[in-house]
Each structure stands twice: as C-alpha cells, then as structure tokens.
C-alpha cells in the first residue's frame, strides 16, 4: 500500500513541476508569428509544387505577407490556384491584385514517329536527361523530344501524358496549372508556358530545331526550316526568326492563323480552333496529317 502511495506522490510531483516549467517556458519563449501567415497558407492550394518560385506554399505565404507589408502584391502569382486564389489572398491582406493572364504548358515538338525516322536505338537508362547526355537520341534531330517522359514524371497534377502513337507528350489543359515543373524537367527546353488564350486557342511554332533548313528537314519532316514565309504573312510583328527557327510572340499574336496555312512543313500548330470551313489548298502531301492533328487535339 505504501509503495503505491509513494509512486503516486512522486509521479504527481514530477507532473506538477513539469507542467509548471512547460507553462512558464511556453509563455516566456513563445514565437510571435504573424497570424496572417497561417490564414494565407490555408488559402493556398497546398501542392508545394514550387511553381511560384518559392519553396513550397509556406514560402509563398511568407513572401505574400512580406509583399503586403511593402505595399504591393505585383509579381507574385500562385500558378496552381490562379486568379481566384490570388483574389482571396488579396482580400485577406487588404490588397488589390493586377490581373495576369492564365497560362498553359505547350510542347513545342511535332516530331512524331512518322515525321521523324529513328536512325538508331537507345539502350541505356530510360530518362530524358540521361539520353540527352548521350547524344541526339534515336532520331537525327538534336533538339526535339526524346520521348522518355521526364515531363510526365515531373507533373504533380497528372496533366501531361505520353501519346503512345506519336511518342510525344500531350498536355491536358484543363488540369495544367502552369506551375512550370515540366519546363524545368525537359533537358531540351521544348516545353514553354504560353498564354492560355481565348477559348484555349493558341498558335505556336511546334519545333525548336536550330539547324539549317536542309539539315532540319532531313531529320524531321515537321521541322521548322526557317524559310520566313510566316514572317512575311504576319501583320502584327508577332513572328521573329532566329537561328533558322521561327518563334511566335504570344503577347503580340492575334490568332489570325495566316501563318499556319503558309507553313510548308506544318510546323506551326494551332489548338482548339474550329475546323476550317473552306479547304485550304495545300501543296502535295501532308494534308492528312494536319487534319489528324486537329482531330486528336479536339479529343
């Protein structure tokens, strides 16, 4: 009986002393945290993707609160949550936000299996980065998609998938949050974040090959050969040609689609446009391919 009593008294005293110590310490050394941090964090999506450029959502909430104290939220955007989330954050912090256009990832390579013949076989580690270090890859194009899917594994939103038939990645624009993880993962810098566009309509040069036209077209039938036809056609100065490669500036492009129809190699791609009513006369072959492309993208 005595033992039990002693045990209870001893343990009880320890508990009492410890609780007093803990209470004093927690009061004395309490870390004063801005309550807004927690609130902003709860609004952010919690994906910790790093798309905003900060280490995870807590890093972003830190930056947002600091920016609010400095008086402006400009330049900060959660690509995943988009305008809606940023609006809620701005409300909470009592700030206004500037409207930024929604973006989407775009794969700038059209070198499907039929367009780009395989000239060798890669037998090493199936990984774009490893393959990129070993040379041009299985085709003669040293710039195009390697097809091992580093972008697919980098995407945390299940928005990018390999198309088995073409061997190229395809972006699901409904799921894409434009966090930019795929852009960083691609060793060949093929993927670009472009303006999502009205009704998701976009026009872009689907090629990054900087070789001379003759070499590029030998490696891939769908390569941009830098001929400059699109440059002449564009009325809005949206197109530049550098290193034998055309590029459409999406801030200037007005989606008139004139460049697309003059491109001799069909390197200029468009998404989500309705089928053209009049059949454009395209020289010789490749007509089928362009129609196929539209169909697959409609799906």
């Amino acid at each position: 009986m005595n033992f039990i009593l002693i045990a209870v008294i001893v343990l009880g005293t320890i508990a009492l002393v410890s609780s007093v110590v803990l209470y004093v310490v927690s009061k004395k050394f309490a870390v004063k945290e801005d309550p807004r941090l927690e609130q902003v964090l709860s609004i952010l999506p919690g994906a910790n993707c790093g798309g905003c450029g900060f280490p995870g959502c807590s890093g972003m909430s830190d930056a947002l609160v600091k920016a609010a104290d400095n008086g402006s939220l400009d330049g900060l955007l959660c690509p995943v949550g988009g305008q809606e989330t940023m609006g809620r954050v701005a409300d909470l912090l009592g700030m206004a936000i500037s409207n930024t256009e929604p973006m989407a990832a775009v794969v700038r390579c059209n070198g499907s299996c039929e367009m780009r013949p395989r000239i060798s076989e890669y037998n090493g580690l199936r990984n774009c980065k490893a393959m990129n270090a070993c040379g041009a890859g299985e085709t003669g194009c040293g710039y195009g998609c390697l097809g091992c899917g580093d972008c697919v594994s980098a995407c945390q939103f299940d928005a990018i998938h390999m198309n088995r038939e073409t061997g190229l990645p395809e972006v699901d624009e409904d799921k894409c949050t434009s966090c930019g993880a795929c852009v960083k993962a691609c060793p060949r810098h093929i993927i670009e974040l472009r303006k999502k566009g009205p009704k998701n309509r976009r026009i872009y040069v689907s090629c990054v090959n900087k070789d001379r036209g003759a070499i590029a077209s030998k490696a891939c039938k769908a390569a941009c050969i830098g001929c400059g036809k699109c440059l002449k056609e564009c009325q809005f100065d949206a197109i530049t040609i550098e290193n034998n490669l055309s590029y459409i500036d999406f801030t200037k492009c007005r989606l008139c689609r004139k460049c697309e129809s003059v491109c001799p190699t069909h390197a200029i791609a468009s998404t989500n446009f309705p089928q053209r009513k009049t059949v454009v006369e395209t020289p010789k072959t490749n007509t089928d391919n362009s129609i196929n492309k539209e169909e697959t993208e409609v799906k």
Partner: protein
Amino acid sequence: MKLHTFKIGGIHPEENKLTSDVVTKVASLPKQAIYPLSQHIGAPAKPVVQKGDKVKVGTLIAEAGGFVSAPIYSSVSGTVFKVDTIFDATGYRKPAIIINVEGDEWEDSIDRSDKLETLANHPELTSEAIINRVKDAGVTGMGGAGFPTFIKLTPPPTAKAECIIINGVECEPYITADYRLMMEHADEILVGLDLLMKAAKVDKGYIGIEENKPEAITLFKNKTADDSRITIVPLAQKYPQGGEKQLVDAVIKRQVPAPPAIPVNVGAIVQNVGSAYAVYQAVMKNKPLFERYTTVTGKKIKNPANFLVRMGTPMRDLIEACGGMPDGENKVLAGGPMMGKALTTIDVPICKGTNSVTVLTDNNARRKAVQPCIRCAKCVNVCPMGLEPYLLATLSAKQNWEKVEAEDITSCIECGSCQFTCPSHRPILDNIRLGKSTVMSMIKARNAAKK
C-alpha cells in the same frame, strides 16, 4: 615477385585482345576528311581556313580557341569543301572543317625520314622550347580524354612535378593500339619520355605496363637497361589501371586526393604512350598531331586490325577496310567496351582521342534486363575510387543533389566497374553520370557566384 597494382577495387573483364599480333597497317586516304573543332577538353578550336582554300598535309586549319584548347592540323592535302556541322562522337551536330582530298602533298617543314633523333643530338632544346613545340603541334592526351599535353607539363605553382609516368597499361579490353605502338616504336617513345622529362624538369621516369604484355615489358627493359633514370614497372592485370589516379597509386604508391587535386599534386605527371610518341614527332620531326594508332575490332569483324590512320578519316572507311559491318544488330563504340561511347552513326571521323573503334554484336550489343538491387555490395567492392556506387546511383535517381555531392560523386572516374559487376544489370553508371554532371554544373555556378 608480387606485381604492383592499385590498392582498392578493380575488376577483371575478358581481355579479348584480338589484334595483339596484327602488325599495324597504314590506312588508305579517305575521299573526304572531317575535322571536328572540339577534339580536346576545353574551348573548341577556331577555324583559320575558308571554303576553297588549298591545304597540304600538316597545314594549320584551326587555331587554339582559348588557353585550355589545342590547334588542329590538316592530315590530308586538298581543298576545303566547307565548314559545317557534322555528327561527332558526342552524338550531336558540332562544327567541323571538311576537306576534299586531292593527292598527298606534305608541308616541307615536316621531316619524313625514319632516322631516330635523340635528345643528346639536340642540346639546344630547352624546357620552354619543348613545351611550346608541343603546344603548337596540337598534342593532346591520346588515351581518350584529350587534355592538352602542354598544360599537364606546366603544373600550377602550388605543385611540383617529381616524375613522369608513361601509361602503357591499356587495360581496356579489345584495344591494342598502344601495345602495337610500343612494339613498333619503342625507341621513339623513349625519346619522347626523355623530352617530357626535360620539359617538366624532372629526372625520374616510369613506364607502367601490364603483365599481359610480356613482350613489351622485355623490350622496354632491354632498351632501358643502362639508363638508371627510367624504371619499367610491370603491373598486375586489373581494370581500370590505366586511369591516371590508379596508375599513380600502382607505380609510385601515392594516392591522389579528391578533386580538384590532380596527379601532379602528388608529384606525378601521367602521359599516354601515344602522347609520348606524338611529343617525339612534334619536337624532333616537326610533325604536328594529325596521325594516330587506332584499333578496329570486334568479335564478328572479319579482319580486325590496328591502323596508322590520318585523323578525319570516317570510321566507316576503317570498318570497310576490316571487312565491313557484321550482319544483324551492332553497337559501334568510339573507344573500348568499358569506357567507349556508343555512336549513332559510323560517319563519325577518327579524332585525336579515338584509340579504338569497337563493334559489339548480338547479345553483347544489347543491355540485359534490369532487376532489383539485391544489396550484394559488389559495386562497392570493385569501385577503384572507394565510393558507394549503389548509393550514388539511388540518390542521383531521386535527384537528391546535396546528399550526392556530400558522398563525393565528383571523385567518380566513370570507369564502369560497378555496372560491369552488377548481377542485376542495374544502370548504376548512367545514374551516377547524371548526378555527377548536375553536381559539377552546380559547383561551377556556385564558384561563378562567388566571383
């Protein structure tokens, strides 16, 4: 007597030296010679010729593009066809000078006689004169990596060279180019070593030769019997003994610390036998580097052979000269099976560092199916740098760059012993290379930020 070798790790791959006894043939001139502008480590060379220019054998066609760089000389006479991009051994299109071959006219300054010139006959050659001549002749390491030789001969002020080690190990399977060179030009190599020793101002020279080349060991021992400065060191057979750091360990029992330390930090300058021969030709014969010994080999190749080949010759020509490509699935490597680089096309030219063209066929060409790691730690046992390859590979695959750097990934010499020995055929080295290149660029960025 117990033979010397390096202390840790190492493997014993099948030798397959098919061409050991095949006397070197002189390869026929190509129709078109191709000179990639980066055949060496460092900045690419800058072309000094234009389309339509006439060149002779030994004409300078591209000058050094920086301090760590090397000039390139024409190996043929003819007309410059164009300066364009071609697929080189890196697997990418890189700028190159292409020359249409017409006849075989040499520059008059080159001494084409076979007479052996020794250092005793040329007392006027100073250390600086030798180094300058080596630099101007575009001599780079002939063992594969292609580091400009003159830089190795001028060590940083913090280090002092004590000896020259000539690398006659040739531990890669299949390759015999260095062995044939040693058998056919022993005197020239010894003069080359003399020149290197004079250039580096040292009075001790070693030649490391593996025991599987007993004739070369005897030949060199006889030739240097009365020269106390030069020691021939027979080495036990083990891969990768030809690696600089392994060779320094094997020959003079000193360990080179982790990068950025280089062998000269422990007093040794390592040169390949091919480089020693090239130094001899550059200094004594005024002949710039435009020829080399190359082995064309493979089990299914009809007549594997060693060639004295003009650089710029497409590999296709050499393979045709050996009986053509075997039927079926082939894998062509620039270099040997352990460290060689697989090519996407055989139109790649022979460069300064191409010691071999190896054609692997059938089941050798393809990798075996990858299986899970069984934690046998064989890779740890064989790693000659004392690393833990399985750990480096896993960390690299998980992109844990900080950890992988802390595990000394930059010490990896990419010899491939780990992957060779792995019973599960795991792509260990592929992953390590990935991590190593990422960590190297991280370190570079960090150093740049510091400045």
